[in-house]
Every structure is written in structure tokens, then in C-alpha cells.
């Protein structure tokens, strides 16, 4: 039901879709209200987002700071370009790893789908150097944590 799809589009874009069992308003709020974003936009286990600023209006700022609890961390800044409450946002963002990655342009759509929401996110593929930097920033740790969790689920029969 909630399977994630992730596809490249041409040379420069990646399109992500995911269904959620909640109304568009809730999914939209979770993507744009700082105190909600801090609860789920976290990456690998053990990472937290102590600082989150989100001003969902055209020209409004975005700033997220993540820390791993061991002195490591990075941050992202961005700006909203378009905001249509509960249905669509367009923003740009860049990571500081610590050097700034090129701007990633992101269009996010929230469409009612029965009682739920179909989320579509279309973003710019980061260039090769930015991807390499992101890979070096702990994505692989996160994958490992994720595989461990999957193994636990398999062991307890959740997926059977």
C-alpha cells in the first residue's frame, strides 16, 4: 500500500512517490511545520534535528541542523518558492557537508487518494561530487541500521 517508488527522469531528475494513510492536510503539515519535521526527517537511527526553521510561504526560509550525538553533524538551508497549502510546495535546498552542495530544486505534491495521500516529490539529481559527499556522510551507516531493523522484523515474523 505504502510502497516507495524512486525513478530517475532524464539526466537530471529523480521522482519519488509514496502513499500515506492520512489526509493531505496532515502530510503537508508534517512536511512544512518545524516541530513536526523534527520528529521524522532524521536519516540514520540516533540522529536528531535540534534546529529546524521552516517558513512555508514564498521566500520563506528553511534551515535544518542534524547531529549524530557523537560530535558529527551537518546542516541544510533553503527557501520556499511556492506554497499552496495542503497540495503543493516548491523549494530549493542545499546541504553543507561542510561545503555547500549545488542547489536542489524540489517540487512536492500532496494529492488526495481515497482516505489517504499520494506524495510525489520531484527533485534535481545532485552532481557527482555532491553525491559522493552525501554518501560519505553516513548514508551507509543508515542503510546498515535499516537492514538490522529488517532482520529483526523478519525474525519476529512481522513480514511473513
Amino acid at each position, binding site marked *: 500500500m*505504502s510502497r*516507495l517508488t*524512486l525513478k*530517475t527522469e*532524464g*539526466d537530471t531528475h*529523480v521522482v*519519488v512517490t*509514496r502513499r*500515506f*494513510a*492520512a*489526509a493531505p*492536510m*496532515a*502530510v503537508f*503539515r*508534517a512536511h512544512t511545520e518545524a516541530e*513536526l519535521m523534527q*520528529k*521524522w*526527517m*532524521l*536519516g*540514520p*537511527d540516533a540522529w536528531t534535528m535540534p534546529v529546524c526553521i521552516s517558513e512555508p510561504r514564498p521566500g520563506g526560509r528553511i534551515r535544518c541542523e542534524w547531529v549524530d550525538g557523537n560530535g558529527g553533524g551537518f546542516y541544510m538551508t533553503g527557501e520556499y518558492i511556492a506554497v499552496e497549502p495542503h497540495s503543493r510546495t516548491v523549494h530549493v535546498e542545499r546541504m553543507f557537508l561542510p561545503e555547500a552542495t549545488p542547489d536542489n530544486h524540489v517540487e512536492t505534491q500532496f494529492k488526495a487518494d*481515497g*482516505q*489517504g495521500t499520494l506524495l510525489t516529490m520531484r527533485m534535481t*539529481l*545532485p*552532481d*557527482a*561530487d555532491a*553525491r*559522493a559527499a*552525501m*554518501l560519505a556522510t553516513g*548514508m*551507509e551507516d*543508515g*542503510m546498515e*541500521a*535499516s537492514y538490522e531493523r529488517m532482520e529483526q522484523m523478519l525474525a519476529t515474523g512481522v513480514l511473513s
Partner: protein
Amino acid sequence: MRDLDAGFGALADPTRRAILARLATGEATVMELAKPFAMSQPAVSRHIKVLEDAGLVLRRAEGTKRHCRIAPEAVDELDRWLVGLREALTRNYARLDALLATMDDGKGEK
């Protein structure tokens, strides 16, 4: 450093993805690769050239025959970023599912 963007461009074409899929099963000559496609051998050669330039395919000459094989480590590196993104999103969205279930305006499905 290998140009990953050229790699993504190379993979954007269905013919080139099909060629890679064929090469994933083992080495092949250009003639063998051209066989399933309704296009000329030079056209297929051009696709192979794009894959070669992107570091996805290796070519070696043996007499008049050109043998092609996949460069597995190149494809692995190319896929890693998208795999990492998928993992990060999967984890985040699982957390978002749990958060949405607690929100009053979520009107969550049973």
C-alpha cells in the same frame, strides 16, 4: 573520479538499459548485442560507445570482433547514491507514518 552524471545519462535510454541487462548475463560481441534490436549495427555501436564513455561497459578487440562486458563496479557506484536515498526515505517515511497516526487531522485509515 568517474563521471556519475554521464552514467545516469547513459542509463536514461531504454536501448542502453537493455544492452546492459544483456551484458549482465555475460560477455557479448557487438553483433550479438545488435541482434534483438530493430536498428543497425552502427546505431547499436553508438549506444555501446555512450556506455563505454560513461565507464559502464568495457570493450576489447579480438581479431575483427569487438567483445563487450559490463564494468560491475561502475554500475555499483552509480546505483549507490539512489540506493542510499531510497534507504533514507524509507526510514524517514516509516517514522512519518507513525507520526501521522498520532495527528488529529490525519483522519487515518483503519
